């Protein structure tokens, strides 16, 4: 598969994402500078974590107007898989590819630690390798991960199972105490209604190798590859 990793000025998890897809999973990876406007031949795009444009104004607010984002929108509109991690999630929100907005963490602190996250929907192209309800240990590292949306949008996301990941206790209880940042409904990750754009605050690329002591995040990437193989098969069947 050919995976594109977008690189904005200030991205700092771009090479981690590249490493996982290329060295751990053996895929072809193309780094895409934010000035690019064409995304030809890519199977999926990752918007990595970091501090694009220094988080000036608001997280993701300036990156969303980068030339590459026009191409990412086109790619998403055609059904291409787009994964936004941390700052990538914030960019997807600002770009309107996912609903809602990020607020400063309730504690006002930058939080960098392992948290437990529950896979609420394991029937997506990003989570199919997990069991439904599985609890995953995964690190977060952000100051603005306090997700907010209006009650109508929240209700519709809940009804459509678009809330894919929620902060929980290690034994899987979704409680206010398990919520590290004040995020609405303990939201850690959401997917669009079409099911091809996922944003998540936790960093699966930081826990995708056993040698690092935790590889529970790897299943996000494996799910994507699985979904892409399925898509390819379907496309071929249509062609023949």
């Amino acid at each position, binding site marked *: 598969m050919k995976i594109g990793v977008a690189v904005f000025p200030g991205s700092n998890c771009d090479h981690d994402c590249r490493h996982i897809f290329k060295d751990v999973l053996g895929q072809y990876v193309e780094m895409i500078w934010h000035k690019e406007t064409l995304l030809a031949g890519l199977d999926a795009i990752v918007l990595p974590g970091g501090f694009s444009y220094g988080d000036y104004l608001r997280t993701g607010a300036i990156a969303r107007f980068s030339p590459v984002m026009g191409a990412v929108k086109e790619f998403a509109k055609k059904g291409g898989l787009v994964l936004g991690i941390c700052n990538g999630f914030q960019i997807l929100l600002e770009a309107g590819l996912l609903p809602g907005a990020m*607020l*400063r963490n*309730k504690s006002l602190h930058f939080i960098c630690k392992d948290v437990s996250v529950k896979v609420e929907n394991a029937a997506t192209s990003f989570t199919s390798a997990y069991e439904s309800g599985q609890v995953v240990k995964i690190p977060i590292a952000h100051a603005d991960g*306090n997700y907010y949306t209006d009650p109508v949008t929240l209700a519709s996301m809940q009804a459509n199972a678009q809330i894919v990941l929620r902060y929980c206790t290690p034994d899987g209880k979704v409680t206010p105490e398990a919520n590290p940042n*004040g995020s609405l409904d303990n939201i850690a990750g959401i997917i669009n209604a079409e099911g091809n754009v996922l944003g998540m605050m936790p960093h699966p690329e930081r826990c995708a190798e056993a040698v690092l002591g935790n590889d529970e995040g790897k299943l996000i990437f494996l799910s994507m590859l699985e979904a892409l193989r399925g898509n390819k098969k379907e496309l071929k069947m249509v062609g023949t």
Partner: protein
Amino acid sequence: MKAKIHVTLKQGILDPQGKAIEHALDSLGFKNAGNVRVGKYMEVDVNEADKAKADAAVKAMCEKLLANTIVEEYRYELMA
């Protein structure tokens, strides 16, 4: 013209910085202080002599970039 723009979180949306400042004011004895909201202040020179055009431009800037209207509200004044 110069635009002076204020962006704050909407009323009803928790402003943790505002709350922290509110508590600090309270513990300093300012018992009359309440509902502190923290925001951003920006000045923009707008190269338009016509006030209506400048106003339309600043409004568009706020809507498109300067404020995220899902969680923030903005107000501005234009000075000659």
